[in-house]
């Protein structure tokens, strides 16, 4: 093993040097701050080792916001680079690294953690559970995702960033054409995070199948929980494919096998097939929970039951099945022939039908309702026309013959940003504004929220709408610059202006969070929006760690709406309260995350002996876990009574 100490840190680039200094300063700042305010113990015992699904959810969301920042800066750098022709702000290599990390981070370390965080917070509450099925596994999922994200983010200051695109197509991503270790980061970091995601999927499925409140049949489950169930199913089916593909890629890159190489009979299209066999379902993994969020928000703020509940459920089931059958549309241009392309055109365009059903159901939920323009509802409303553009351009791309002209151009880039930003990011915003008071006991400010909304929406459309036309002008994606004669600059420049608005919108969100933490009015009202319909709004705000003093009986889809109608059911009878069994916190997942990070780091640098030794750290953790006999603890009745009495007051308290 030959370690080249002088090459570990990336040197010679002022931007990267600046980041290195900033990272060190931030780390020092955090350590000093925690020590000065004596918060180490609080952080460790209340957060890092907490198995409470709500706290894990919050940690996921904090990570998502941080990654949004990183991915957003990448995006801004790309926009700055292409704002004028022949720009030299970034060179080709740097630009390639930036768009690669932008894609990976936004999909896998921003969208996924945000949604899994929101699922963690809302889903157990919606089905009337006290936690997920495997609380410690849930924490492990978080730490593996976090370890993967940290390893991946390390790449641009230590060792070199991946530079083969977020799709990491071979043979480009192989050692024959990218001999640095940059793409090892991709293979190893995503593997670690992927294991965490797979565990989350299993966890959510078991939670939903086994832990619903009495009376909550599957067809009485809130739509967000339904989408969580289907998304988790797709995770469990699709992620193992990615695991295998990454493993083969790792073998190619680190041990010199020939699965995807040019030499010795490797098949580069095998990677493309495996990647998209996971990659397309992945799109639906992030979009289905978003559909669930919109369904909840639209019903709440229209003061109406979700229209066509059954057809909504069927639509997501059909979408999930079709999502597995469309992967070839990512490479119609591979030349597999018109028959194969026809089949995949049909499956692709067929997705428009169930998606259309959902659109119309949302519209008809609002019809005859009383639509309140709160922040979460604004995002939901903005989603409909913008996602429609994403959807119809998706149909255009799905028509294989036409795709020959759109493929690999900015038309495609515009299309998937028009699906993923309204489809996922807007939903995440809607969910943050919607569930924020439930989690923290105060709303996010509506006035700053409007700034956030308008800046982000104007910015989004300004940035990505011109890209449709750039694509039709013949601009390929991933070009680090373009000539002045090409005539592409007006639209590129317009798009760059839009990016400034987008950044301002994100800043407004951050400011809103800061402002609301400091000044927004606190509430202990269990239903701060006043028109909520599902079970999570039936318990205290902020939610006690045991969630429900007594698990409620469910008689209809909108369980809490029903309770409000028959006021009697909502009052708590203290005689029914029994000690509540809860899981204990655990430091083991933190340890496992660290062990995976260390082993992964050595593997990335191809220091095989060190990687092998540190793999034992992982096994040691697993053995430790096998001999743990912690059965958790019971929350005593007195504690529950005291908590419940405080927030309920007399009206919701049935004293006997």
């Amino acid at each position, binding site marked *: 093993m030959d370690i080249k100490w002088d090459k570990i840190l990336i040197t010679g680039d002022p931007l990267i040097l600046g980041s290195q200094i900033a990272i060190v300063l931030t780390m020092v700042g955090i350590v000093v701050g925690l020590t000065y305010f004596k918060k180490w113990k609080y952080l460790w015992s209340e957060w890092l080792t907490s198995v409470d699904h709500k706290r894990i959810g919050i940690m996921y969301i904090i990570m998502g916001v941080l990654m949004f920042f990183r991915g957003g800066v990448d995006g801004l750098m790309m926009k700055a680079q292409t704002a004028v022709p022949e720009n030299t702000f970034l060179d080709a290599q740097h630009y390639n690294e930036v768009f690669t990390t932008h894609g990976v981070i936004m999909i896998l370390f921003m969208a996924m953690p945000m949604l899994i965080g929101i699922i963690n917070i809302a889903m157990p509450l919606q089905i009337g559970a006290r936690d997920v099925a495997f609380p410690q596994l849930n924490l492990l999922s978080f730490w593996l995702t976090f370890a993967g994200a940290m390893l991946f983010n390390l790449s641009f200051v230590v060792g070199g960033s991946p530079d083969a695109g977020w799709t990491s197509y071979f043979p480009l991503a192989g050692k024959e054409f990218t001999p640095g270790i940059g793409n090892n980061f991709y293979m190893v970091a995503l593997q670690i995070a992927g294991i965490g995601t797979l565990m989350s999927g299993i966890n959510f499925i078991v939670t939903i199948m086994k832990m619903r409140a009495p009376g909550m049949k599957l067809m009485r489950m809130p739509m967000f929980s339904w989408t969580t169930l289907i998304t988790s199913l797709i995770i469990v089916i699709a992620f193992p494919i990615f695991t295998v593909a990454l493993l083969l890629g790792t073998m190619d890159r680190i041990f010199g096998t020939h699965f995807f190489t040019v030499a010795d009979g490797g098949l580069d299209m095998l990677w493309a097939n495996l990647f998209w066999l996971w990659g397309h379902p992945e799109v639906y993994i992030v979009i289905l929970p978003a559909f669930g969020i919109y369904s909840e928000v639209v019903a709440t703020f229209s003061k109406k039951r979700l229209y066509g509940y059954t057809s909504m459920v069927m639509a997501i089931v059909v979408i999930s099945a079709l999502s597995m059958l469309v992967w070839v549309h990512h490479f119609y241009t591979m030349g597999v022939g018109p028959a194969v392309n026809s089949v995949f055109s049909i499956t692709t365009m067929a997705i428009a039908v169930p998606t259309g059903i959902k659109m*119309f159901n949302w519209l008809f939920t609002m019809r005859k309702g009383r639509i309140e323009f709160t922040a979460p509802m604004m995002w939901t409303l903005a989603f409909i026309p913008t996602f429609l553009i994403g959807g119809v351009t998706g149909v255009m791309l799905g028509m294989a013959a036409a795709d020959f002209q759109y493929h690999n151009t900015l038309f495609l880039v515009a299309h998937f940003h028009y699906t993923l930003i309204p489809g996922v990011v807007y939903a995440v915003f809607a969910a943050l504004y919607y569930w924020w008071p439930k989690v923290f006991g105060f709303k996010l400010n509506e006035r700053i929220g409007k700034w956030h909304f308008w800046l982000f929406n104007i910015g989004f459309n300004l940035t990505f709408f011109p890209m449709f036309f750039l694509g039709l002008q013949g601009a390929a994606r991933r070009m680090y610059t373009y000539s002045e004669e090409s005539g592409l600059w007006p639209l590129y420049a317009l798009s760059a202006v839009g990016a400034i608005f987008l950044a301002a919108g994100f800043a407004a969100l951050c400011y809103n969070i800061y402002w609301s933490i400091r000044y927004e009015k606190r509430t202990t009202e269990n239903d701060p929006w006043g028109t909520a319909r599902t079970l999570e709004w039936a318990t205290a705000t902020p939610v006690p760690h045991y969630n429900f003093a007594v698990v409620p009986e469910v008689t209809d889809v909108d369980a809490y709406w029903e309770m409000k109608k028959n006021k009697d059911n909502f009052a708590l009878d203290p005689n029914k309260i029994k000690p509540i069994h809860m899981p204990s916190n655990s430091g083991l997942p933190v340890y496992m995350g660290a062990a995976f990070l260390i082993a992964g780091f050595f593997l990335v640098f191809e220091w095989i002996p060190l990687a092998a030794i540190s793999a034992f750290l992982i096994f040691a953790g697993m053995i430790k876990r096998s001999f743990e006999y912690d059965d958790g603890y019971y929350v005593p009745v007195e504690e529950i009574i005291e908590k419940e009495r405080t927030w309920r007051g007399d009206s919701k308290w049935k004293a006997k």
Partner: protein
Amino acid sequence: MKKRKSLLLSVVSVMLVFLLSGCEMAELVVFNPKGPQAEKILDLINWSLVWIGLIMVVVIALFVYIVWKYRARPDNADYEPPQEKGNHLVEIIWTAIPFIIVVILMVPTVTTLFDLEEVPAGYEDQEPLVIHATSADWKWIFSYPEQNIETINYVNIPVNRPVLFKLTSAGTMQSFWIPALSGQKYTMAKMETELYIVADHEGSYFGRNSNFNGKGFKEMEFEVLAQSPQDFDKWVKEVQEKAPKLTEEMYAEKLKPSHLGRETFSNTHLEWVDHADHHAKEYLNPELYRVHGYPGKTFTDENNDIDNDTENSDHHHGGDHSGH
């Protein structure tokens, strides 16, 4: 609310002015086809735009109507909306209509797909001109086996005659695209894909690789010159007589990652290698792709190392070239 709308309006109009005054904006090349293949695709695109426009108008009209009509107002504060579960008939209708539209779009998609694989109608009686297009990092190599000539980064074709491009790659996967003449297709090492093209107007067209393949990706462009048959024959003759011969050593040098200008030769590299062949010899130079960052191991087969290894021997990145 009103104030914000007018603000939005003014922002949009400023942008429009900016857009329109954006002097030499590129044309929408996809909407300006110069050959039957690109025309066929454009017909399909236009057909899809009609239906998609219809969908957009209907859905957005419905959206605006519903949001406006049922918005919360101070005077309807005690309005209790009906809790409707749905309506089977309505739901069947909005399942059926998109389904029909999908079928309407699907049929021409399938027929176009099959059409694009063949010599365009009206040109079947002519023998297609065969050109091998080989992509390498970061240049395009065009071989005319019949004429025994080879060009780099430009390709001349006779107008109104079908051209059969046989596509392959010497390394990374790339995509061959001449937007004015036809849609794109991938080039892959040790594989061959085929693309029929006809130019029905004389002129110079822009072609490029659209599939990202590393540092030199942006520059991977070529020119397609559609000439009259006479001019084309004259050019071929000239090249055959005047252009230098390509040797395998020169060729190996050209395949190294680099940008080349236009070059012309009076023979083709097919004499010693056809990269489309499954057992083709490889010309790989992993060491020449080093960039900043920590160097990883590379794994080259010794018997394939046609290059002199000496240039890298003193800074053997990533330790041993192990295993051999």
